[in-house]
């Protein structure tokens, strides 16, 4: 049996990979993927927590998080499509009309 703390370490790693992705990737689709990775790290924690405490609550919460993640990415892709139609690029370095 794998001890539950291992899951927490794995999810922390996943979260850090996602965060790193947000910081260094420039393509908006990669940013969306990185956010998805961070949300799934939270899901892993919730499910591991449910197993640690012998409850089902955490697994239920993971479903809520999945629904939220799906809704979020739907809006995100819609905005990305609009951005691509306007500027022809999904590179974050090309998005810089607003600054100062």
């Amino acid at each position, binding site marked *: 049996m794998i001890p*539950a703390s291992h899951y*927490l370490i794995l*999810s922390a790693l996943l*979260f850090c990979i*996602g965060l790193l992705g*947000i910081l260094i990737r420039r393509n*908006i689709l990669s*940013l969306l993927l990185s*956010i998805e990775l*961070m*949300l799934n*790290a*939270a*899901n892993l*924690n*919730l499910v*591991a*927590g449910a197993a*640690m*405490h012998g*409850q089902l*609550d*955490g697994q239920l*919460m993971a479903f*809520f*998080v999945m629904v*939220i993640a799906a*809704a*979020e990415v739907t*809006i*995100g892709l819609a*905005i*990305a499509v*609009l*951005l691509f139609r*306007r*500027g022809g690029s999904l590179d974050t370095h090309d*998005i810089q*009309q*607003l*600054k*100062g």
Partner: protein
Amino acid sequence: MNLLLLTPEWVVLGVLALLTFFELFQFKDEAFYKKVRNLLQLGGLLAAFAALLCIEPKAGTAFGGTYISDPFAAFFKFIFLLAAGAVIQMSREFFDQRLERSHEFFLVLWVVLAGFFLLVSANDFLVLFLALETVTLGFYILNAYLKNDPVVIEAGMKYFILGSLASAVLIFGISLIYAAAGSTLFPDVRASFVNDPQNPLLVTGALMVLAGLFFKAGVFPFQLWIPDVYEGAPTPAAAFLSVASKAAGFAAILRVLYTVFLPLEDKRALLFGTLALLTLLYGALGALRQTQIKRLFGYSSISHAGYLLIGVAAGREVGVAAILFYLSAYALTTLTIFLVIAIAGRELGSDRIDAYRGLGRRSPFLAGIFFLALLSSAGVPPLAGFTGKFLVLLAAVRQGLTPLALVGSLAVAISLYYYLAIVRVMYFAPPSREEPITLCPASKGMLLALAAALVAAGFFQGPLLGAAEHAAQYLF
């Protein structure tokens, strides 16, 4: 289970359902549709207001303790209702003479309002997260609403990326808390945290939850999105974000700080004092060289968040009551300012500060109200903004945070500089065009009412301060 406690929420959801229902008919007559929509929204706001008045004195929980209704939550719901009313009028002004369909804008506005109501009443981390996401997903749409304008889309995208990053941090923090405490209910988590204040999972989780909420409130390391988004987003969306999102952020921060994260209490003054200092200076100094009016108010809202953080650092009943008063005054002031910006933006065709040249001659009424709101925002007596700042700084001095109060006073002086620069342009620069601006009666009435409230809350602080102190007690 006491479902009647949720009456204000039911009213808001009912209006939302009716608005969606009317959408199905696809009225040929646009003017008739707008009339129905306006009446429905006005009725909904009044009904929600009445429901809140009835619910306000009762304190209780519903849905197995995950929802809490108390005067503290009700105080914020009044602020949200005020903001929604002003933002609806602002949207009517904003979409007037624009080609875009505005139907969905109003629908999403009501979704966001329902989210705000739930957010301040959350007594469970999962409910907190879901309410916050309802709000944030709505704002993703509102901020990117003008789909043909590249600047608006850019602002929407920036808000989306940073907003979903903040949500991810928040839910990861919640998942850590759940893994350690085995529950997400606020009282259960508090019990675990008090038993084991050094638990690394709980401490990390608490800090990550606070970080996620700091994004909403626009607190220092998480404030980078504010100027860009305020500048780009449609004016009503920026106003709603500025008033309601900040209020909700602080409501959630106060709620988790005082009902859940009690072991953080001895570090509170240091943590929030430092953040207050940095937020205040970032906002005040950043605003100095702005040429775009909405961007300027983005920085100004960051510096307002700094004052609110001084209140959090001061803490206890005094600090919380000061924060509640400050937020009400801030809501009145900011809604006035953004209503003027929405009207002026349409009439002048630009949101640059230069474009306000000679506004004092073209519309003395609009310029006069704007002047009054700017003075209140800077904190000039005897307006509401002054009383708010005074209470916050007084609370800081009483809790032995005098240096923080001094920096707060210094920031008032800096802010006077950039607010008065706008006044100079309005009154003393020669106008580019001469024809007077006429206002619609609804906007005129709303501006007058907001300005009267600003003056009244400055002269007679008693009732509002009493309500704030009463609401603050329920947190402890």
